[in-house]
């Protein structure tokens, strides 16, 4: 039964049944299934843990930016508003330096062609989206925990709002940056282009996240932050749906 659910084709372009053939080692999988997406997801993790390049670089990035903030604060006591802003600056820029890796590495290694031959684009998109989401969630959890530990002035009064914001904010960041990473992987200047393209798109998300974080430092009740959560969820849903529709054009280009 569970196997049936895993292999159930998800409606995508083109909708055809999977061919049942014995001994298929390299065969194009036409339908998008959760299995293929899951395999892409696992592949990302395996190739990441082979070198641990992105992970190490990102952790160092987090340490560096946090210590810069600590140095610049010094003995001053900034307001909660400024501190909740800087938290999201750190998360945004570490997302910007980390999330573009998934597609850029594929182009650099020259493996994107093989992937294009083997699986359909929707599976690639879902797999990479999940990987990006897990990566950015892990990162922002580390950032949030170390932020709470090292910056004493930053006091969160309602933790449930804070953690839900971190979770939904990571989902939103991953949803918008996956498609943008796919776009910049095809461009000539990859490094600088990503934040330039991402900033105007991610701004509604960031402003809402900063607002929600402010609410959590003010000790608001969970019901007061519902409006912010609705915006974050709708942003993520809109981004994932649109990217799912247009990803094929970018990937097959």
């Amino acid at each position, binding site marked *: 039964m569970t196997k049936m659910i895993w292999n159930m084709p998800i409606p995508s372009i083109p909708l055809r049944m999977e061919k049942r053939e014995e001994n298929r080692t390299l065969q194009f999988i036409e339908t998008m299934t959760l299995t293929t997406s899951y395999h892409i997801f696992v592949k990302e993790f395996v190739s990441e843990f082979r070198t641990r390049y992105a992970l190490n670089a990102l952790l160092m990035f987090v340490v560096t930016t946090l210590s810069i903030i600590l140095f610049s604060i010094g003995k001053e006591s900034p307001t909660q508003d400024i501190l909740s802003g800087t938290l999201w600056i750190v998360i945004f820029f570490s997302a910007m330096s980390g999330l573009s890796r998934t597609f850029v590495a594929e182009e650099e290694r020259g493996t994107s062609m093989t992937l294009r031959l083997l699986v359909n684009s929707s599976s690639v998109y879902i797999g990479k989206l999940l990987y990006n989401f897990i990566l950015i969630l892990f990162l922002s959890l580390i950032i949030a925990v170390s932020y709470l530990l090292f910056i004493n002035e930053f006091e969160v009064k309602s933790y449930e709002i804070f953690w839900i914001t971190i979770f939904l904010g990571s989902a939103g960041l991953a949803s918008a940056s996956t498609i943008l990473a796919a776009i910049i992987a095809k461009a000539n*200047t990859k490094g600088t282009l990503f934040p330039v393209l991402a900033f105007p798109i991610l701004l509604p998300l960031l402003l809402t996240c900063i607002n929600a974080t402010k609410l959590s430092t003010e000790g608001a009740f969970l019901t007061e932050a519902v409006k912010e959560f609705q915006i974050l969820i709708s942003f993520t849903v809109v981004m994932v749906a649109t990217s799912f529709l247009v990803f094929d054009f970018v990937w097959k280009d």
Partner: protein
Amino acid sequence: MKMWLKIAVSVWITGIIIAGIAFPMVRVPQTWYEFPFIPGLEEKARNIIFHVPISWATVVAFVMSMIYGAMYLRKKDMDYDLRSVSSASLGLLLCVLATLTGAVWAKFNWGSFWNWDPRQTSIFILLLIYGAYFVLRSAIDEEERRATLSSVYSIIAGVTVPFFIFVMPRIMSGLHPGSLGDEQGKGPVLEFKMATNMLMVFFASLIGFTVLYFWMYTLKVRLMRIERHVQQINESH
């Protein structure tokens, strides 16, 4: 565009400029050409006849660029990409104009050129989106790839626009009418409280600037088609 339409637009816009700048503002309007005096806005209210239609035309240009981008993705015809770029470059010009007219109005009504009001933030984001769009285009050499990727980017940027128009003014406090904390009305659609003759000039200006945008757009498309043609001839020799 037809010759008579061009002449009509020129006359129309000239009339609007004359009406917007020269019609007197009095406390009690007597004749059809006298605008009523709005307390708090005074003579500065004239800007509504220019600033709002330009902002509207900016959004029209952006939506057109997005629609042609989507058409390109469907048909893979380079002409659609050309239209998309033409509309985007005009949109950039209009966006700068809308920002400037808005900033001048803000200086004299709210005290400073820039206040980070939600609407000002959204026009700033639109500027950034246009900037990013042209940066992306300049970063790709291959013509078809450039067309595909910039179309996808304009679609992705386009779906965030409702967040700026409908969501941001609700969560941020602002100075424009229709912001959070404004009793007169929340949301993007304002209740028009202008006098009838001013409203007529306002809507005439809205129509005028939209048609002017289409005129400039057709000129730009023709120019770019010729440029592409010349380029192709040069390459073949």
